[in-house]
């Protein structure tokens, strides 16, 4: 009983998490032919909403290069990324509930809301320029022997360092 409690309530060592993530990504790649990506799924949802609103974006430059278009037979809502993104949210919720750590969080004030939204737009835009987020452009790129994963890694550290400096100086 104690062991089970420890497993579901306490954080696991980084190395255990790393190995499990690697095995899961290999499994996903073996069965679907594509490595794990996250933000691409969110982009497709956004595009799906724009489509419903009547915005025609199929001829946008982004969707004509680098294999950014939808896989054949898939739609902006019905695709592999929707399944995996919903699964990630479900898995994370299950883990939080098991550890009794689930909690609704409030927005502190307008400043936090504003910075959150601006940060989200910057991250979303940046993820499109860099072929993905830290999952698609880093975690899945490096095992694919793609150089852009290593470039991403270097600048991720630069960005985190710069972000902390800016935060420390101007926002706190």
């Amino acid at each position, binding site marked *: 009983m104690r062991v089970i409690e420890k497993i579901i309530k306490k*954080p696991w060592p980084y190395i255990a998490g790393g190995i499990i993530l690697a095995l899961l990504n290999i499994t996903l790649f073996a069965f679907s032919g594509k490595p794990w990506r996250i933000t691409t799924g969110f982009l497709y949802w956004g595009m799906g909403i724009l489509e419903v609103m009547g915005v025609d974006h199929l001829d946008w430059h982004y969707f004509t290069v680098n294999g950014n278009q939808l896989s054949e037979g898939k739609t902006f809502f019905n695709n592999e990324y929707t399944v995996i993104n919903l699964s990630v949210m479900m898995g994370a919720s299950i883990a939080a509930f098991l550890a009794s*750590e689930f*909690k609704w*969080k*409030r*927005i*502190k004030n307008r400043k*936090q809301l504003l910075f959150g939204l601006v940060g989200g737009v910057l991250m979303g835009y940046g993820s499109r320029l860099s072929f993905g987020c830290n999952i698609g452009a880093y975690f899945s790129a490096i095992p694919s022997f793609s150089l852009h994963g290593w470039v991403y890694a270097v600048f991720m550290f630069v960005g985190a360092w710069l972000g*902390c400096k800016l*935060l*420390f100086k101007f926002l*706190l």
Partner: protein
Amino acid sequence: MLEVRIDCMHEACPIPLLKALKKLNKMNIGDVLIMETDHSCSITNVIDWAKKQGHEVDYAEISDGEWEIYIEKRQ
């Protein structure tokens, strides 16, 4: 001895840690910093960090999922 409170409710990493770092820099040895937080990660990372810096640290859960972290500046 001075007691300083910082409000880190509804704020996520790394804001609580950076706020604590900034406040502690301006405090004198022996002063106590009290951080209010509802971010469970802070219980791990703020406490580990403060211990590593050589400060005296303790914490208490004041209500469901809300904590106070006490840091006594030692250096």
